[in-house]
C-alpha cells in the first residue's frame, strides 16, 4: 500500500476565513475540497479537535452503496456513487474502491416484498439493482448458507453490483491532501468552544486557540452535532448512539462481496488486507463514549455464524464504537439553519461513509450559494415541521 510522500501542511491558524468547517472528518474534508474545487472558495479552514478523520471516518465499516428506497435518498447516494467511481483519479490517490457488489438478504416474505420494491425503484432511479434467488445468492457469495432449514432461511437478496467498499483512511487523506493543495488550512488539535455572534448572525467561532472570524460556519461534526449546535442555541432532532464494529484477524480471501442482513442483524465484508469487517446494530442508549455493550457484539456474531458457517474458526481481533447521529427518519440533515451564517450537516446515522463525496459536494454548494442544492433540499430541518420526512428505516442497514 503506497501513500504519497506529501499529504498536508500543518499550517498556522489565521484569524479570519471565508468559511470555517467544524470537524475534520470525511464530510468536513470533502466539503472543504469541493468548496475550493467547485466554487473557488479557498480561504477555508477545517478545524479538527483531534486528528483528521479520527472520528467516525476511522471507525466505520466502509460499505458503499446507493440502493436506497426513497427517491430523494437514491438521488443523493447515487450522486455519491458516481463521485466514488471517479474519485481515485480525481484525487490522484488510490482509495481502494472495490465495486464487488452488495447483497441485502431477505429472510421473510416482508423482506422479499421490500427488496423487490427497492430493486424496482432503484432501476427507475438509475441505480443498478437486481433481485437474486437463493441459488443466485449462493452463486454470487458461495459462503452464504442458503439451506431452508435454518431459523431464518435466505429467501432472496437484492444485489447492487456497483456497491462495495473503499479504504476509509485513504479517502480521508486523499480529500485532505487535495484540499490542502488548493489552499485549505487543515488545523488539528483545534476545538470549537463557542460561536461568535453579531446581530443574531454567526460570524465566527471561539476555539481553544482563540477566536476565528468566518463568513460562514459549517458544522460537519457527526456524533457531536447536538453539542455544537447547542452552543449556537440550536436544538437538532438528533440523538447520539454508539455503533459498534469489529474486525477479525487477516484471512485468505473467503468472502467475495458485501453481505447485509437487516433481519438477522449483521453486515460483513472482507477488507483488502484480509480481515473480516463486521458491523453491529447501534446500542440503544444515548452515548458519547465510543464504547458499547458486549452483548451487542455477541448477537452480531451469532448472526454472522448463522449466515456464514465458515466463519466459525475466525477470531475477533478488535472491537470499537463510533458515535452516530441518528435522526427521526434515518435520513440526514444538510442545509442552512435558522441561525444565519450557520450550516449543519448531520444525522447520517450509520450511513455517513458511503455518502462522503455527495455530502461534501452538496454541502459545499449550499455554503457557497447560501441555499441548498436540489439534491439536499429534501434533507432540510424544515421537514420536521412540515412532516415531509424521508423515512428510510426500511432501507437502513440496522434497525433503529
Amino acid at each position, binding site marked *: 500500500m503506497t501513500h504519497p*510522500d506529501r499529504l498536508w501542511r*500543518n499550517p498556522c491558524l489565521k484569524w479570519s476565513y471565508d468559511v470555517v468547517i467544524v470537524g475534520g472528518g470525511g464530510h468536513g474534508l470533502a466539503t472543504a475540497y469541493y468548496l475550493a474545487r467547485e466554487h473557488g472558495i479557498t480561504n477555508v479552514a477545517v478545524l479538527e479537535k483531534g486528528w483528521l478523520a*479520527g472520528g467516525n471516518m476511522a471507525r466505520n465499516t466502509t460499505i458503499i452503496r446507493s440502493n436506497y428506497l426513497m427517491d430523494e435518498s437514491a438521488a443523493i447516494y447515487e450522486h455519491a456513487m458516481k463521485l466514488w467511481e471517479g474519485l481515485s483519479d480525481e484525487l490522484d490517490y488510490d482509495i481502494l474502491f472495490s465495486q464487488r457488489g452488495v447483497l441485502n438478504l431477505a429472510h421473510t416474505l416482508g423482506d422479499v416484498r421490500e427488496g423487490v420494491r427497492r430493486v424496482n425503484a432503484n432501476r427507475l432511479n438509475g441505480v443498478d439493482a437486481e433481485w437474486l434467488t437463493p441459488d443466485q445468492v449462493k452463486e454470487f457469495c458461495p459462503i452464504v448458507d442458503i439451506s431452508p432449514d435454518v431459523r431464518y432461511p435466505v429467501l432472496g437478496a437484492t444485489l447492487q453490483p456497483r456497491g462495495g467498499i473503499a479504504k476509509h483512511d485513504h479517502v480521508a487523506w486523499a480529500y485532505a491532501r487535495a484540499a490542502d493543495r488548493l489552499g485549505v488550512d487543515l488545523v488539528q488539535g483545534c476545538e470549537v468552544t463557542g460561536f461568535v455572534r453579531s446581530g443574531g448572525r454567526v460570524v465566527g467561532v471561539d476555539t481553544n486557540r482563540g477566536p476565528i472570524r468566518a463568513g460562514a460556519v459549517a458544522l460537519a461534526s457527526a456524533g457531536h452535532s447536538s453539542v455544537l449546535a447547542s452552543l449556537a442555541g440550536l436544538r437538532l432532532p438528533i440523538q447520539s448512539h454508539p455503533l459498534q464494529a469489529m474486525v477479525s484477524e487477516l484471512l485468505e480471501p473467503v468472502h467475495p462481496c458485501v453481505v447485509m442482513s437487516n433481519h438477522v442483524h449483521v453486515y460483513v465484508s472482507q477488507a483488502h488486507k484480509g480481515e473480516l469487517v463486521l458491523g453491529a446494530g447501534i446500542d440503544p442508549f444515548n452515548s458519547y463514549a465510543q464504547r458499547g455493550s458486549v452483548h451487542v457484539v455477541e448477537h452480531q456474531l451469532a448472526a454472522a455464524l448463522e449466515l456464514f458457517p465458515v466463519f466459525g474458526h475466525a477470531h475477533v481481533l478488535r472491537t470499537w464504537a463510533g458515535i452516530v447521529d441518528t435522526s427521526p427518519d434515518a435520513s440526514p440533515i444538510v442545509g442552512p439553519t435558522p441561525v444565519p451564517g450557520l450550516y449543519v450537516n448531520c444525522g447520517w446515522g450509520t450511513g455517513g461513509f458511503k455518502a462522503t463525496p455527495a455530502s461534501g459536494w452538496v454541502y459545499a454548494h449550499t455554503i457557497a450559494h447560501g441555499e441548498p442544492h436540489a439534491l439536499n433540499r429534501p434533507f432540510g430541518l424544515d421537514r420536521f415541521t412540515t412532516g415531509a420526512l424521508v423515512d428510510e428505516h426500511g432501507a437502513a442497514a440496522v434497525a433503529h
Partner: protein
Amino acid sequence: MRLPSGGRIDRTTPLTFTVDGVTHTGYRGDTLASAMLANNVLAGPSIHLGRPRGIVAAGVEEPNALVQVGPEPMLPATTVELTDGIEATTLSGRGRLATPNDGYFDKTYAHCDVLVVGGGRAGLAAAVEAGRSGARVFLADEQPELGGSLLSTPDTWEWLDTVVAELASFPETRVLTRATVFGYYDHNYLSIAQRRPGGGRLWHVRAGRVVLATGAHERPLVFAGNDRPGVMLAGAVRTYLNRYAVRPGRRAVVCTNNDSAYATALDLLESGAEVLVADVRDEESALAALVRSAGGEVRAGTTVTGTTGSPWVTSVSLGSETADCDLVAVSGGWNPVVHLHSQAGGTLRYDDATAAFVPDVARQAHVSVGSANGELDPVHPLWTIPAADGSWDTHFVDQQRDATVADVLRATGAGMRSAEHVKRYTTIGTAHDQGKTAGVNTLGVIAEALGAGTPGPTTYRPPYTPVPFALLAGRDRGALLDPARVTPIHAWHVARGAEFENVGQWRRPWYYPLPGETMTEAVLRECRAAREGVGVQDASTLGKIELVGPDAGEFLNRMYTNAFAKLPVGTARYGMMCTADGMVFDDGVVLRLAEDRYLATTTTGNAAAVLDHFEEWLQTEWPDLRVHCTSVTEQWATIAVVGPLSGRVVGALAADLPPKFMAFVDTTVHGVPARVARISFSGELAYEVNVAGWHGLAVWEAVMAAGEEFGITPYGTETMHVLRAEKGYPIVGQDTDGTVTPLDLGMDWIVSKRKSFVGKRSLRRPDTARPDRKQLVGLLPVDPDDLLPEGAQLVAPDTPLDPPVPMLGHVTSSYRSAALGRTFALALLRSGRDRLGQVVHAPLADRTIAAIVTEPVFYDPEGTRRDG
C-alpha cells in the same frame, strides 16, 4: 536445544507433532512454540517482505510465530498447548477458513466480590489476601497453570505450590485457568474467554472490585536486522530455559537498557551457554559483577547495531566490533499490561523512569498491582539505534506488519503529526498481536522523529487477545438463534403438510398444499373454500391484550384513532392506532368484555410493540388513568371459521352463537369454555372461536370433524391475505410502511373528528395534509392473467423510462383471485383517488404491465356476505 534436565515439562510423556508436514517430538507441558524452538523450527516468513522469522516471545505478545492448527487459523504458537498429533502450519500473518466450527461453546454469568486478573506473583498475593477475608474471589489466568512469570523462576516454585494449595482451600474462591480476561466493560462487567477441550466457555462476570495483576510485556530494541531469527526477548529466553528446559542458543548476546535482562544472562550461563551482555547504559549495572563471576562478559555503553546470518543470526555488530552468536536476547524495557485498565476507562500516564505508560486514574472499581502497575526496573530509554550505514529499512518496529523506522519516517515526512495517523499510514499495531510489543516503541520512534519529548498516549480496546467468533456466539445458533413461537395447533399443521412462513418470531402456516399441488393452486382452492363453503385458519398468533380498569375506555379513546369508550359490552369494533407522527402503527379488533374490561387484538408481528406502547403512555403520560394491561396472546387459541357454511360448523359445536356481526358471546364450544365472536377479515360470514390454549388442538380437531361434511378447508396466511385484499382491507406493514396515515388508506371514517388521540395533531401538518399524497387504491391489470409483482413501481403511461423516472407509487399487495377469476392488486399511488379509472404502468426489468386504477374494494362492496 532441549536441556537434559529441569523445566516443568513432563519428560515421561513425549508427544509427536508436525509443523508444515515435518514430524517433531516434544513433551507434555510444552507449548507448540517451546517444542518448535527445541527442534530449531522457524516461524513462517514475514507477510510482505518474505523475511525469515523466528519465535520472539513466550506469550500472547508473540509477533511472528502464527500457526494454523487444523481448521483454526492464526494461533500464536506460544499460546498453543502441545498435544499429541497436532498438525500445525506456519503462517505469514494470514490464516485460512475452510470449515464450520462444531465445537461446544457455552456461557456462564457470574458475580463475585473480587476478580483478580492474572495468576502471577501479584495476582496470587491479591487473591490469597482477598480469599482469606472470606470474600467470593475469582482468579483468572490465561495459562494452563497459575504462576505467571514465576513459572520461569524455579526458586519460587515451592512458594507457588503453597499459595495455590491455600487458594484451593477457600470455599468461595474460584480459579479459572486457560481463561483470558479480554474485555472490561461498563459497571465492572468483565468478559473471560476460557479454553476448554473441544470448545470454550465465555464467562461474563460482574465484579465488586477488580485487581489487575496482568504483568508486563517486554519491548524489543530497534536496531538494524532486529527481526533475524535468533533475536528474542530476554524474558522469553528465560522462560524457555527454565519453564520448558529449552535453550534457544549456545552463544548469546544479551542486549539491554535495564537490569531485568541480567537474570536471563545468569540463567543462560547456568545452562552452560556463553554470554556477552551489551548494556546500552554508560554506567555499569550492579549486576555486572554477578555475570562476570558466573563466567560472562559485560560491556557497558554498548549496544547491538546490526545482525548477520541466514536464516538464523550468526553474529552481531557492537558498533565497530563484531561478535559471533546464535542467540540475541534483547530487552528494551517493559510495558505494563494496561489494556484492561484502559478499556475500563482508566487513564494512563507516561512514567519517565521506566519509559512506559502506567495506570494513572481508575474510572471504575479496579486497582492495578505489581508490574501491571509499573513496578518495574528503571530503563534508559532508547527508541532507535542507528545503523552504521544510516539506513532505517531493517529496523523493524512491528515485525508482523513488516513495518520499520523508515516507514514511520515516511509518515511523519508526509505531514503526519498524530501517532494515530502514523499507525494507520504504516499499519503498525494493527496486526494479530495488536502491537503488544510494537506499540510503545512506535510511539517512542514517532516522538523522536517529531522531536517531541515523550511518546503520546494511546488507548486500548477489547478484546485483549483475539476471541473466537464461535465463543462469542455461544449457543445462540441454529434453532436457538431466535426462539420460534408456535401455536397449540402447530403439530396439526405440520402433520397436514403445511408450508410455513416466519411472522415475527411466529411460525405460521402459509398454505396447505395437497400432493402435487402448486402454491397458486393451493391458495386458489383455499380461497374458493372460504368464499363458497367453509375454511378455517389458526389465528392464535394475533396479539391479545386485556385492558382492565375504570378508565380503560378513555385510554383506548386516546390511543386509537376511533372511539371505544361507548362501545357496548358484548360487541367489538375495528380500530387503528397511529404513532405520534400520525403514521399508521397497528390495527385490530377490540372487544368490550365488561364495563371495565377490553380485549385488544393486534397484528401478529406487533403484539409486543403495542403492549409496550400502551404501557409507556399509561405510565409516563397518564399515570392518573386507572388501567392495567396484560398480554394474553398465548393464553388463547383462536380459530377463525370462515365462509357461508361457517355457521353450520360452529353451530354444531357451540352452545350459543353471537347475535350479530361484531358481537361475541362467552359460551362453550365442544364442551369447553369459549368466546365466540362474529368477526370477519374476509368479508364472509365468519366466527372466531377462542378457547384456552390447552384446548386449542382438541377444539380445532372438533371443528375439522364438524366441518368434514361441508368440505372444511384449512387455510394459511396467503389465503387470508388474498381474501382481505379482495375486500380492500390493508395489512399494516405490507400496505403501509411507516409513511402512511389512516387518511392515505382512505379510512377517513376511522379518524375521529371529535376526540383527541395520539398522532392526531400530525395529520394536519402541511405535508401530511397534502391532497396529492400516496393513497391506497386497487389495480386491475389490463390483462387479467397478468400478475403484478408486489413491489412493482408505478408510472404514468406516457412516462419516458430514462432514469430518474418519476414514480407515482408502488404495488403493495398482488394476487390471483378465485372469486374474481383474475388478478388484482392494491397499491399506494400518488393522488390515487384522483386517478380512479386511469391506466398506470408498472415497468419491470423485462416488460411493462398496464393496470387500471380502481377503488380498493373488489369483492362484495355492499358487504352483503358477512351475514351469510
